[in-house]
């Protein structure tokens, strides 16, 4: 089981009517790696995330999470995924702790077991001292950190983050990116969707997605070659200045 990739996407396609949003997408993530799903806006990243979290399903292709087929055994697969959606999914008028408890219960955790895991997750993101605050009182960076902490409560093997730094200032963006890289360093497999190359370290795995196709999978350093990652990315996708924003 441990030899299997943490996340394996094989020949996945999905169409919205006549438009093909994903076309024969395949990639595999080894365990304990930070992998960036890099693509310009409209590349199909959010569609792929909807498939990975089973908000959408497709008949074409398979997705396996820690060896569990998402179509055949969705509950086992979903239990091993932690998700941070692009759009915030917090109850603003409830405290951080209540939000965490709600999520823990959705994953079947309650009582002391939930409390222990929630404390540990908040500690990992340096958010424990905020547990009693209402989410509305937190700034954007702290809300995001809270969402990441929440996604870790049920000890997932794979953490999916869909453009988690959207709308954050530079300092918060850098801090969150560093935190998640650290989580990958501790053994978590991370899939981080982004169109911003400065969030990617040279050693990170990168899957370049463009117009529903996987153009390349390699480390950022390999993709960059002798140049920079941004130049390589623009050359591959024909993008302009967005990647550097």
């Amino acid at each position, binding site marked *: 089981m441990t030899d299997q990739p943490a996340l394996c996407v094989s020949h996945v396609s999905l169409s919205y009517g006549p438009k093909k949003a994903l076309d024969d997408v395949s990639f595999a993530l080894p365990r304990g790696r930070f992998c960036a799903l890099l693509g310009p806006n409209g590349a199909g990243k959010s569609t792929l995330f909807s498939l990975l979290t*089973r*908000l*959408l399903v497709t008949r074409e292709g398979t997705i396996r999470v820690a060896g569990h087929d998402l179509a055949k055994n969705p509950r086992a697969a979903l239990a091993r*995924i932690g998700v941070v959606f692009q*759009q915030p*999914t917090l*109850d603003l008028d*409830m405290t951080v702790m209540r939000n965490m408890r709600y*999520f823990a219960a959705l994953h079947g955790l*309650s009582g002391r077991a939930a409390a222990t895991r929630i404390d540990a997750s908040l500690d990992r993101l340096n958010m424990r001292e905020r547990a009693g605050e209402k989410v509305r009182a937190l700034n954007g960076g702290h809300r995001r950190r809270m969402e990441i902490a929440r996604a870790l409560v049920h000890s997932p093997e794979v953490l999916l983050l869909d453009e988690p730094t959207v709308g954050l200032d530079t300092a918060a963006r850098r801090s969150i990116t560093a935190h998640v890289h650290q989580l990958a360093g501790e053994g978590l497999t991370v899939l981080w969707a982004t169109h911003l190359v400065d969030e990617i370290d040279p050693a990170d795995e990168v899957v370049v997605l463009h117009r529903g196709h996987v153009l390349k999978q390699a480390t950022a350093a390999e993709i960059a070659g002798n140049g920079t990652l941004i130049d390589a990315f623009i050359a591959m996708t024909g993008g302009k200045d967005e990647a550097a924003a």
Partner: protein
Amino acid sequence: MTAWLAALYAIVAREALRFVHNRGRFLSALVRPLVWLVVFAAGFRAALGLSIIPPYQTYITYEVYIVPGLCGMIQLFNGMQSSLSLVYDQEMGSMRLLLTSPRPRWWLLFSKLMAGVAVSLLQVYAFLGIAALFGITVPALGYLYVFPALILSGLMLGALGLLISSTIKQLENFAGVMNFVIFPMFFLSSALYPLWKMAESSDLLRDICAVNPFTHAVELIRFSLYGSFNGWALLWVVTGTVAFFLLALVGYDPARGLMRRRG
């Protein structure tokens, strides 16, 4: 099973907490039926003579007649309010959080239904309490007997709300639901007038009322409040609940696509 119950409890507690925090919603939920009871019923008391019809054993005043209908009205509005909050959740993203839980989707949606029912029970009992202060009471045991009936009628109306929420694409479209679902369902039912009264003006109207599931929810509540059992109404309500819930499940099926439409 403990994990399932933990999810159910969390979803119900979240909804109840949101309701309690929102005093405006609680007040409007109470004011609406009370206006009907105190103002509307007082004005129509003289105009509407009522014969003795089951489950009543004697002549009753119009205020007494419409109490079960107003209980149903509270649940109808609450069902639509829950539907609105589901559409809001879809737009705000918290629905995604719910649907990516590793519990079966039908259970998560059923838990949502139960949350709406719990909130509606709070409202109905608060309304019955205030009605009692106005001197409009039912037999003491009726308050107990009506409990399971309210759960069933709340489930049916909540399931209808769930079904509607699966078909509405945007929050802005919700006003249409008021015009095309709530008002016809309420007025074309036995909530305000008994069916024989409807038949006096039009047999067609009576027939429409007779096939309106809301009529049967109201009758189930009415009979229970007086310690009687109405098997026909029960059959209608259970059938309605199952049908609406199954259709809602289709609407929330990831293969068909709630989120597909939303991109």
